[in-house]
């Protein structure tokens, strides 16, 4: 393994995406859980707890996407057309949930409308990100140096499973954030959610892990094959 520019950039993009998931996705989770909070104090507190941080934290994904375009333009030009529909859906979802932070305070009579926008936008964005992840795992059809699949290649039972799993995972992040940041009824509420969501997340991890080896022969071998080191590959049998 050499430390060269592509390796450094791959690490930077990985750090960007990981930071995005850890530091920002609890606010998506709060959006997903929003309908379960009582109208009034609970919803206002939940929203206020993320309002100062969500916008800054969300910028990490710009580093991930921008870095991919700048450092790995070929990968960018293949992955983005392949995942065009879920990525556009994610952006539109983020528009609605982002603007809900501003608009829901403006007119109390229309607050329910922006609460729905906040929740639906969050669910759409989380599902789209999960589908993106699943579609990357199951592979993208490439011929030459371009995407060669169809417009619906990303939509499979496996990608829907990863989409649903990410919704559960983000909801757990959101409820844990509320356990940390709030007290009283909302805190207790979040504690109950977290318990069930943790069980759900473990089940989702088990399901995705069980499905992954059957996506491709190579995955299956990696999981179930006995490690065989031929003489030539001896020194690198731990690394693909």
């Amino acid at each position, binding site marked *: 393994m050499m430390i060269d520019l592509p390796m450094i950039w791959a690490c930077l993009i990985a750090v960007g995406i990981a930071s995005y998931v850890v530091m920002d996705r609890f606010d998506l989770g709060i959006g997903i859980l929003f309908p379960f909070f009582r109208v009034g104090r609970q919803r206002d507190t939940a929203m206020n707890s993320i*309002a100062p941080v969500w916008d800054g934290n969300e910028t990490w994904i710009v580093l991930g996407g921008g870095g991919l375009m700048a450092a790995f333009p070929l990968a960018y030009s293949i992955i983005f*057309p392949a995942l065009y529909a879920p990525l556009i859906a994610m952006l539109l979802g983020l528009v609605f949930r982002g603007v809900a932070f501003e*608009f829901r305070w403006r007119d109390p009579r229309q607050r329910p409308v922006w609460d729905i926008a906040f929740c639906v936008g969050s669910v759409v964005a989380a599902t789209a990100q999960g589908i993106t992840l699943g579609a990357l795992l199951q592979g993208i059809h490439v011929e030459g140096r371009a995407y060669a699949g169809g417009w619906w290649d990303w939509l499979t039972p496996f990608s829907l499973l990863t989409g649903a799993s990410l919704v559960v995972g983000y909801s757990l992040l959101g409820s844990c954030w509320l356990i940390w940041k709030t007290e009283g009824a909302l805190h207790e509420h979040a504690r109950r959610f977290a318990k069930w969501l943790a069980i759900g997340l473990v089940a989702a991890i088990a399901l995705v892990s069980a499905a992954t080896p059957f996506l491709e022969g190579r995955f299956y071998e990696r999981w179930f094959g006995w490690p065989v080191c031929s003489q030539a590959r001896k020194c690198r049998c731990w690394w693909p």
Partner: protein
Amino acid sequence: MGPSGFIAVIAGWVTTEIGRQPFTVYGLLRTAQSAAPLGAPAVATSLLAFVIVYFAVFGAGTWYVLRLMSKPPEPHETADPSGAAPTRAAGITPAAAFDGGRA
């Protein structure tokens, strides 16, 4: 004079985007060479979706701005008498909810 700044921004944007055609990078890379291998229906659908979403969001925003402008300032007013205003938020102006007191 209100919308003139907006018109100027849009006009500048249109000038840069149309003025450089048929190049993406002027004199070096043609737009036809740099276009993604996306089908026209896919691009048309996403464009339509963005137009609808932007009309909805900017329509609501414009309506809120006009409502706020039509409400005269009163002495000793707070951001939101109901106390449900955002405590601190990135990019949120501390403007009043225009029906805050009567909700």
